[in-house]
């Protein structure tokens, strides 16, 4: 076990957004670690705080409206939250890079795709390579993601959605980052194109030995691509484990179970879905105790009063729920 190296560790991260007198508690004491070379899936619904976590790691949170209230983000032994802007700029794009959800809006419409990929390489050009060398690298990146190098001089609008996402991936990978954060990379794409892009991403990950954080709401993608999974709800990780723990394990957080039950299945012939009652809690007014308790089918009195502590079900599997807390029987009988 000691050989495994933790590349990124997020500890007790709390992020709030402030706007028009309201305080939005987006991330509430979230902790996780990513081992080198693995793919971690962050799963959750809209507003769970997945993207906020990614932006915190990238140092890209909006400066005026957001505030990191506590926590540490340790990357290669350094706390990114303590880094100066300059230092962060050196890391961002070179060591950690990010793919955004919507390829249509994350490219600059007035620059050719070649220039956009080149931009990152020029900014992180420590070895003082010549422009020709850098352009050769851009060509190499384009071929790597399956775009003919001859399209270097074309503009984003000349590409289809799937091809644009490939350009974005080429941009993110140009500096060979150690860690890639992909925020819903295929949500805007059609299934057959999604399959192409996902296939390409896992091939590249294998070849380049990259570590990845994949943010998605699609449990199908998680089952196929991730090694470890974290379920995020109301800014907290409520369950964390290997894919085997999450997909074939016995014990689950009631929310994770609800997510699986709510999926229409291709195998079952069931005509009704089991939905999770109620809605995501309002992040300006989070419930006391366990944040899932108002929607939880197995809610107990204690869930309304106290916040559950993380419980290790096995070495790799953590669940934050009173159902699995030690001494549960005693509490129930009292």
């Amino acid at each position, binding site marked *: 076990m000691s050989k495994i190296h933790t590349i990124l560790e997020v500890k007790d991260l709390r992020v709030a957004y402030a706007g028009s007198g309201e305080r939005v508690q987006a991330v509430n004491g979230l902790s996780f670690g990513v081992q080198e070379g693995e793919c971690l899936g962050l799963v959750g*619904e*809209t507003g769970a705080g997945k993207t906020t976590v990614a932006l915190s790691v990238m140092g890209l949170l909006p400066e005026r409206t957001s505030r990191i209230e506590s926590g540490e983000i340790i990357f290669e032994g350094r706390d990114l939250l303590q880094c100066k802007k300059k230092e962060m700029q050196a890391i961002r794009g070179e060591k950690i890079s990010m793919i955004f959800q919507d390829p249509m809006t994350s490219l600059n419409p007035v620059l050719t795709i070649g220039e956009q990929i080149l931009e990152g390489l020029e900014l992180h050009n420590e070895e003082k390579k010549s422009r020709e060398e850098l352009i050769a690298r851009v060509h190499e990146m384009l071929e790597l993601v399956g775009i003919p190098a001859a399209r270097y001089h074309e503009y984003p609008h000349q590409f*289809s*959605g*799937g*091809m644009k996402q490939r350009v974005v991936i080429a941009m993110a990978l140009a500096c060979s980052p150690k860690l890639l954060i992909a925020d819903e990379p295929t949500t805007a794409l*059609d*299934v*057959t*194109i*999604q*399959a*192409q892009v*996902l*296939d390409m991403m896992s091939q590249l990950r294998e070849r380049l030995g990259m570590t990845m954080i994949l943010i998605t*709401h*699609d*449990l*199908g*993608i*998680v*089952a*196929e691509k991730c090694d470890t999974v974290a379920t995020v709800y109301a800014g907290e990780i409520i369950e964390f484990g290997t*894919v*085997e723990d999450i*997909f*074939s394990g016995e014990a689950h957080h009631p929310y994770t179970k*609800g*997510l*699986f*039950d*709510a*999926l*229409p*299945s*291709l*195998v079952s*012939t*069931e*005509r*009704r*879905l*089991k*939905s*999770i009652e109620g*809605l*995501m809690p309002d992040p300006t007014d989070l419930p006391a105790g366990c944040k899932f308790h108002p929607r939880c089918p197995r809610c107990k009195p204690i869930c309304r009063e106290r916040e559950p502590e993380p419980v290790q079900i096995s070495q790799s599997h953590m669940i934050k729920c009173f159902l699995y807390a030690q001494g549960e029987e005693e509490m129930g009988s009292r």
Partner: protein
Amino acid sequence: MNEILLETRQLKKYFQTPRGLLHAVDDVNLQFRRGKTLGVVGESGCGKSTLGRTILKLLEPTSGEILYKGTDIAGYGRRDTKRMRQHMQMIFQDPYASLDPRMTVREIISEPIYINKTMTDRREIEKKVGQLMETVGLAARLSNAYPHELDGGRRQRIGIAKALALEPEFIVCDEPVSALDVSIQAQILNLMLDLQEELGLTYMFVTHDLSVVKMISDEIAVMYLGKCVERAPSQELFSHPYHPYTKALLSAIPVPDLSCRGKKREVLKGEVVSPIDPAPGCRFALRCRHCTERCTQGPVELLEVAPGHMAACCRWSEL
């Protein structure tokens, strides 16, 4: 039970573009059975939404027939179309964009009633709105709320209530759950199934999500570049797909099950080509692994490959 409520025959919708004629819907024949759901699946640009809008005559069909209870409504003028629309309604994809932000929930739901004058007494209309809100699971206290105050799931419930206001028989549901999260998606799908059972509604369910369409549909039509390439009862389509495109589509879905992990799947090469002035022959030929010369020569018709199962592939028997 198997009464056909609505039928399209050789329905075509072409758009004139600067680069040529865009074949959005090309010779589509579909039958909608009363009280059943026909799912229409395909990728962006395959013409599935255009088909739905053409059937409702929100777009004027280029040619072909739309038979509603045996009467062709394709050639209807404005007044007749308006009358027909009382029986045929639509639920739109984006609950954020399809509701007027300056109207309250009550105004939105009652608008179709005022426009079509199906009721005139204000108090009765209020009562009807109350009933509709209850039917779709909206709390009565929300009747004076504005759409921006509500979340996506509730907004989609408003969209459904509005579609039900005229007591239609046929509803085109254009991606009604794709903007919603899974837990909310399940709530809305269940609601739609309940309503169908209670009111005997006939749905045309347009979506790109194959697992959703499987769950909600009795029959499924797969579209590719304006053509219907395969049509079969829901279970049958998933267990025995014939068309290579359907097969590729089914194998492209990521399955939330570890046993499928690492399984080599069939990844389609290339992308959807342009529907402007398409080449004769099978539209899928350019991306198809099994393409032969025969595929690109003449038109490929839908053939019955098994009882109740139609596919448009000239090599279906060999593959």
